[in-house]
């Protein structure tokens, strides 16, 4: 699949934003996070910016962005519609939660409840995002049980990294968030490795033979494409990434996305203070880079069944 930058940015940024929302919406009412209004302002602003920025970016991917409002109507069947609904819904309780917290310093009661609701809705949003991909049968690398957990894990991981950084920035004191962050980063890494192993070792049941009903005489392969140059389908679905780049990008994703953030989180845990804050900040930056390459690969390594009609041997 063609790794469209707008979509890559959307899933990484919105994933982090909504995950941060989950952490704040649960962590603050439960008193696990700093209740200061300033912190609330900063953290919520960042969560909203990441989420809304992601959504805006995804709208720019649309052929007719001015009609984006129509996308909420088909929640009964469409994960994309559901995602849109939950994404927008998240902002309602989040607004009450934010106003209550920032302007009134309230983090419990109704405000707290709204925080929890926002968190639940954000959780649902991430689930829907995952399901958009996981529900697509034509794409083996997406249509599997690793995709939704991956989305959760990587979303939470980015949310935790941001949170940890903010917490440190705010209070500059060691916090439990770092430990959790470390755990989540390692869990995300494990999850991603499992995903990669899965896509490396399996391929779809769909083959050139099932795609064409041919094969009784032997191997089926393309003779000539229907059109000489690439059409829309190939531009969008026929993206192929060279093995060399794939290996390199996986290392970038591994190191920048997981290894370095984990290490920096350990540094932050160990040193605290300015060093810790800087380390947590660097962890966020590194993870952003890593996750963008991870997400790029998530698209680039995904093979659509349509390519079987255009010369692919397997998907």
């Amino acid at each position, binding site marked *: 699949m063609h790794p469209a930058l707008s979509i890559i940015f959307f899933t990484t940024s919105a994933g982090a934003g909504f995950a941060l929302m989950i952490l704040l919406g649960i962590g603050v009412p439960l008193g696990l996070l700093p209740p200061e209004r300033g912190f609330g302002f900063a953290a919520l602003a960042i969560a909203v910016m990441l989420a809304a920025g992601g959504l805006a970016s995804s709208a720019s991917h649309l052929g007719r962005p001015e009609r984006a409002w*129509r996308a909420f*109507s*088909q929640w009964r069947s469409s994960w994309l519609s559901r995602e849109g609904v939950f994404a927008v819904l998240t902002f309602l309780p989040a607004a009450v939660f934010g106003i209550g917290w920032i302007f009134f310093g309230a983090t419990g009661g109704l405000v707290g409840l709204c925080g929890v609701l926002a968190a639940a809705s954000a959780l649902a949003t991430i689930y829907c995002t995952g399901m958009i991909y996981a529900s697509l049968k034509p794409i083996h690398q997406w249509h599997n049980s690793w995709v939704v957990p991956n989305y959760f894990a990587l979303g939470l991981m980015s949310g935790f990294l941001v949170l940890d950084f903010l917490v440190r920035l705010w209070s500059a004191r060691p916090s439990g968030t770092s430990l959790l962050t470390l755990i989540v980063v390692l869990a995300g890494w494990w999850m991603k490795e499992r995903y990669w192993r899965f896509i490396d070792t399996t391929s779809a049941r769909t083959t050139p033979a099932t795609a064409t009903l041919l094969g009784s005489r032997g191997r089926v392969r393309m*003779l*000539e494409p*229907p*059109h*000489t*140059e690439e059409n829309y389908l190939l531009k969008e679905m026929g993206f192929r990434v060279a093995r060399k780049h794939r290996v390199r990008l996986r290392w970038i994703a591994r190191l920048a996305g997981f290894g370095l953030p984990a290490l920096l989180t350990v540094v932050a845990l160990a040193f605290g203070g300015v060093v810790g804050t800087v380390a947590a900040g660097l962890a966020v930056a590194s993870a952003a880079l890593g996750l963008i390459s991870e997400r790029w690969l998530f698209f680039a390594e995904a093979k659509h069944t349509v390519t079987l009609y255009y010369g692919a041997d397997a998907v």
Partner: protein
Amino acid sequence: MTLASWLREYFSPHEVIDTSAKISDEVKFTTCYMCAGRCGIKVHLKGGGIRYIEGNPDHPVNRGVICGKGASGIMQQRSPAKLKRPLKRAGERGSGEFREIEWDEAITTAVEWLSSIRATDPKKLAFFTGRDQSQSLTGYWAAQFGTPNFAAHGGFCSVNMAAAGMYTLGGSFWEFGEPDWDRTRFFMMFGVAEDHDSNPIKIALSGLRRRGAKFVSVNPVRTGYSAIADEWVGIRPGTDGLFVLAVVHELLKAEKIDLDYLGRYTNAGWLVIQAPGAGDDGLFARNEAGEPLVLEAGGSLAGGMTAGVSARLVGDAVLPDGRRAVPVFQLLAERYLDPSYAPEAVAEACGIPAATIRRLAGEMARAAFEEEIELAVGWTDWAGRRHESIRGRPVSIHAMRGISAHSNGFQTCRALHLLQILLGTIDVPGGWRYKSPHPKPTPPGPKPAGRREQIAPGKPLAGSPLGYPLSPEDLIIDAEGHPLRIDKAFSWDAPIAAHGLMHMVITNAWRGDPYPIDTLLMYMANMAWNSAMNSAETTRMLTDKDPTSGEYRIPRIIYSDAYYSEMVAYADLVLPDTTYLERWDCISLLDRPIGSPDGPADSIRQPVLAPDRDVRPFQDVLIELGARLGLPGFISPEGGPRYPGGYSDYIVNHERRPGVGPLAGWRGADGEYSGRGAPNPRQLERYVANGCFWKHELPDGQRYFKHANKDYLETAVSMGLIDKPEPVVLQLYVEPLQRFRLAAQGHGTILPPETHRERIAAYFDPLPFWYTPFEEARVDCGTFPLHALTQRPMQMYHSWHSQNAWLRQILGSNRLFLNRALGRALGLAEEDWVWLSSHHGRIRVPTRLMDGVNPDVVWTWNAIGKRAGAWNLDPDSPEFRQGFLLNHLISELLPPDGSYAHANADPITGQAAWYDLRVRVDRATAHEAGTTAPSFRKLAHPVSLGRAPAILRYFSGDDHEEQFS
């Protein structure tokens, strides 16, 4: 809108679809010209543009279907390469720099150039036309002008098929006949990728498969029609003659031949004089009346044309002068029973296992003799004998350029006809049938005009410049035996070059061999590119100047094209033509008609759109030039223009012979006659009202055995299709060939020059035989181990369609296809780049691998590569960067062997031997990969063409929102 309805619409949006939208404001019938297939089409017009083009269901050719090209007519009409006004060369030839001029100036210039030629030496005009369908007009014009130097594309196309058929059967595969598609049980197709009968063949193949008839495709490549064949025989190119004669060998051995048919309809029993060394050796023994003799059962001689005579198949006859003669059949049997024709003897050369050859012969025999067809239809044979039924043997063959485009194509095609005749399958139910107006007499006529005494300044030629020579007397040569035509047709180089040798014109004119010409007038032929052999050198010849005079060696070139093709850039004067939807045209029985086996037919094109630019139909221009030049056929008795109304006037009012004109339908003052009749001023209206075609259905009793069917022959005479109601005797043994051979042996007064004798003696064999194609025989097959072929893609017509926005998406650049095993041996993967070299040159091309190709063969799609700047395509188009032509590798002359420089052609007909090409493949280096070589300087861009749009949003001719780059 209420909130509820808004919400309903929001959550379940509902689309209102106009399922009965109005389709068109107007529907016009005409004839397609996206290729030479001549299908009938219905053009739906809407909003001033074309809504849709579909097949005319009533049309005899295509019965409602059209092909991929035909359905892309809209984009042909909207091509940005359409020429918009006359052009006069402003820069050097080949640069593409032009000055736009008015028609007045264009015509005056042409008249000026041409009138001085006509007044001094008319043969200094060489008039050659390509894909056009008005050869009866252009040929007539040339004859009126007085130049013998006229031909159309047939010489590089399929004259081998036409000539072999005409001399053997009075008809031919090439458009002049077809299998009895509905009845045949065993159909074998030789070397066909698409052909002119594109839709009819497809319709027919589909019927064959549905009926369960066997379809065998003999073709080195398994694509297109071959893909759906029951059996694919991946023959090695140029060896079909061996294969077919091995089948003949098997049939003779098994005595599976139709002796009754041979006796009644062929010259199998005619006696051939056996007097080696004599001037009439190998000719038919004849009586005083000139009638060929046969040997009767009792041993006496009798006239072979006499009804009821019984002739011996085998046996020595003693002629009245005491010499020996034997029946044709004996010669034939002796030759083909020889073990050198056995399947085992040819299997390796053909790349077909002997068992397969034997099995196919058996299958053919079984279909012919065990599945005989009998139609309960009475008919009368030429001798007046009544037959209560029509019997047929359901084996049929079709062949095209895979046979014709080889230097042994004439004899190979003869072999195919021999096989058909031996099985008794010519014009019988289930066999192969003549398409009206064929059959024509054998040997064919008329003879070509253009002998020295027939050419005089200011005078028309005494006949058509093209024809069928029957003996050396008919050649167009001078007293020393040198060619008199610029293409050397009808000379000892190519004695029966019935369609001329268009591919030699530019070379010969440039060399001044046999003489220099003054003006080259060309129409609808991209001779600077895909129809040239050796294209690069051809363009050099077109631009070469005589160093002494500083003049171009070919002083003037006038060219008519409708589009900015490669050739346009080489013209001094460009006459822009209309598109096929903008003009009258006529697909005439005098030319390449659309007749079917069930009766004659012809058709027209009518203008369905008015041209939106300053262009004129070339036929109109030609007729006007004819009048301005004072050509007798084009001026009225008063000296004014004879056809002031242009081509439509000519179509209606021209008479070639009394009562016979371009169109056969609705003749006579009231349209009451078919075939022959006075001109009808409302003829075109009648055609238009009938969907732009006319057809005459023969009664059932006249549909078969047309070569010997009394009622048919009489109908044909009455309609002006033939002159005399005489039977057409199928010529197993072609006597005229022997006449040329005798001359080569030194008999007669007109003898070939020494340089040609051996060759004429060898190849003018009156019985078909096989020989190694010339290029293969001359090059080192170790150095050039492979054959290279082209195939026509079904969705592109030669060079026409790279300007078609839809079709060029389907095929925008070509690849060289290699057998996967060969690719493996060369270490090639898909899309690797290689050098392809021949004895003549080399090109760099991208590859693709496939299994369905003979291992000794590489091939590509024809005419996809283009010259940068042509066709108004962006200079970075794939046609230039990845597309390529094989033509750069094909020399117009045979590989030199120190003797006379013969054309790379069949020695009998002069047919260009495109598919004799031998090559080698070498890997290109990594830094060479990516673009094809050679590449040529970009052609300049005539101003009036405008710039092609960057996005097309075609909607019923409504282009106001088009974006220009």
